[in-house]
């Protein structure tokens, strides 16, 4: 039976904000009060990034935005478990992970504003740019991990994808290759219950995590709204990969509280009671309760966190609205590494065409 709680779900922080003891405790033994506060700040900031970007879309500044509202714990918990030399291959919703990798805020919205085909330099933050074709990146992560093993390095490739992607051949082929070559790769599935309007029940008749063992890959289900649980299971999987234990599969059971993208209307397919139910499991609220109980949510701390969120939102907005327009001939750049005569000719034709308007004093027909 599929479940969103229960015995097979790793949970170190309950929705009531209390620590739940378990065998995964040792993986987060170093997370003291200050580091808990750090995780809280991360989640508040990425939620604010999400809200600001959504507002920018509503104001016509962005063409589209894929909100991560509700998935902050899954992304921050796992993202903060990674080392700098690990390499992330994500889908398009992992802005929280990109934040952990150190992505520039303007780079996060460059694509969605329509100014460039990608945001950041993958080699600067060790994270590939967002992948829209569902599940394709699971293979890229696996291949990268195979190459890492050829190099004798102990860094790990991490593939992020959603529940919908588990229906794709590429995700399943990736698990075959990862197991066959014992590639140091972690498959991190954020089961957010919905692939646009298709419920996870259409993708899976059993828990998604049940599939991996059939490929010879150990798997774990974790409460995806529990930042400590997500960090613990990711650290375990990374450790396995680094020490030659091969791939792992994590199913983080979470919920997409917003639409699939700003173009989507979830009220057409979702029961409002479901959303209310999940609001009770909000990843930020539960950590706030824990911090509160431990006296770590004092005024100056929350003031500092809110100031940081304000600052980041301001940088995001400023970066967005001041992004320079792309150049007229930039569309031809970087199709090939070396000149391609046919494309060079097309560039030359378009260049002359544009120049003809200038020669005529500007203005098109």
């Amino acid at each position, binding site marked *: 039976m599929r479940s969103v709680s229960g015995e097979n779900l790793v949970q170190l922080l309950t929705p009531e904000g209390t620590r739940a003891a378990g065998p995964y405790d040792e993986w987060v033994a170093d997370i003291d009060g200050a580091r808990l506060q750090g995780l809280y700040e991360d989640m508040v900031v990425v939620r604010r990034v999400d809200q600001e970007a959504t507002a920018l879309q509503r104001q016509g500044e962005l063409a589209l935005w894929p909100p991560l509202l509700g998935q902050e714990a899954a992304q921050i918990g796992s993202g903060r478990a990674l080392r700098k030399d690990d390499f992330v291959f994500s889908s398009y919703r992992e802005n929280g992970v990109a934040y952990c990798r150190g992505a520039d805020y303007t780079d996060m919205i460059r694509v969605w504003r329509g100014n460039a085909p*990608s945001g950041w330099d993958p080699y600067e933050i060790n994270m590939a740019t967002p992948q829209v074709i569902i599940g394709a990146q*699971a*293979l890229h992560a696996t291949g990268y991990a195979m*190459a890492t093993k050829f190099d004798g390095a102990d860094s790990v490739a991490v593939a992020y994808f959603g529940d919908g992607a588990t229906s794709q051949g*590429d995700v399943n082929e*990736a698990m075959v290759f990862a197991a066959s070559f014992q590639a140091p790769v972690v498959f991190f599935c954020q089961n957010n219950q919905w692939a646009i309007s298709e419920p996870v029940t259409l993708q899976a008749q059993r828990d998604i995590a049940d599939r991996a063992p059939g490929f010879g890959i150990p798997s774990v289900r974790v409460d995806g709204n529990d930042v400590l649980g997500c960090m613990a299971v990711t650290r375990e999987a990374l450790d396995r990969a680094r020490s030659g234990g091969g791939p792992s599969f994590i199913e983080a059971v979470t919920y997409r509280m917003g639409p699939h993208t700003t173009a989507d209307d979830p009220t057409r397919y979702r029961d409002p009671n479901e959303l209310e139910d999940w609001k009770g499991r909000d990843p930020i609220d539960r950590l706030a309760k824990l911090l509160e109980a431990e006296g770590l949510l004092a005024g100056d701390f929350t003031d500092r966190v809110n100031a940081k969120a304000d600052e980041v939102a301001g940088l995001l907005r400023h970066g967005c609205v001041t992004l320079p327009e792309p150049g007229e001939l930039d569309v031809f750049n970087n199709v090939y590494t*070396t000149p391609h005569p046919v494309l060079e000719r097309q560039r030359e034709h378009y260049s002359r065409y544009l120049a003809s308007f200038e020669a005529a004093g500007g203005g098109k027909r």
Partner: protein
Amino acid sequence: MSTMTFGRAINTGLRKAMEHDSKVVLIGEDIGKLGGVFRITDELQKDFGAHRVIDAPLAESAILGTAVGMAYRGYRPVCEIQFDGFIYPAFNQIVSQVAKLHYRTQGRVKMPLTIRVPFGGGIGAAEHHSESPEAYFMHTSGLRVISVSNPQDAFAMIQQAIACDDPVLFFEPKRRYHVKGEVDEEVDLASFPLEQARVEIPGDDVTLVAYGALVQLAKDAALAAREEGLSVEVIDLRSLSPLDFATLEASVRKTGRLVITHEAAMTGGLGAEVAASITERCFYHLEHAPVRVTGFDIPYPPAKMEHHHLPDLDRILDGVDRALGRTNSLSDLEGN
């Protein structure tokens, strides 16, 4: 200079590329101990190890998709697609990922993949084993598409393809694998640029364009036509994308007549592109509309019917006749 088969020439070229650059890795089905179903990778796993010559599980999308990941980490994967008809499961990775990643990452990530594809018919194979899917890839920006026709080109151009920082589809005419030819292993690779066609036989009356397995047929047709007093210029395209219009234009300006032949179906095929582009560029030099001699717009037929589908010597000569305005079976029809 030594004599070797077309297949051995590719094997030798692969070996040279692997010796030259330790980042070159081969990945494909049955390419290890077996040496590939056509033995093109014979002995390479034994000499370079299983981490350089990777026997892949049977999943074409994964062969391409993991190669993408390897390229992200600085490797130069050479993927073998076992047969032309098996490339379709990998189509998504090739056109959506391999072709676009350099553009998508604004030049930060290079995809120096080589995708080897034994292609074409004429060997009496079962279905899905004789196809000519090259036009799908010509139509995709970001890819280079090569097809070689002889051992020397195969030896040199597979190395050039591997050295190229752009992804290259390398179509090998499988019915030529066992044909022998001279190969100079010390040849200067720079004299085999990836985008240059070659005039195989000079001539003045008609330009006949072919690639892959049909180059030999085109040459045979030119010799047969010579006996009738006709001078046919034969061009081996070698590069299908980009097309070498400099060579094509120079030839058509001289002859005024153009025939293009390929095994692939006519509609939307390479011949259509050559005909349209040459018409645009050389309209006032043409004495006749360009003529296409191609496979029909049908699924590749069963072995005992394939000779009806594949262009042969007589159909090519028939096309040459039409380009010359001579009366034949199709003369009273509009177009091809």
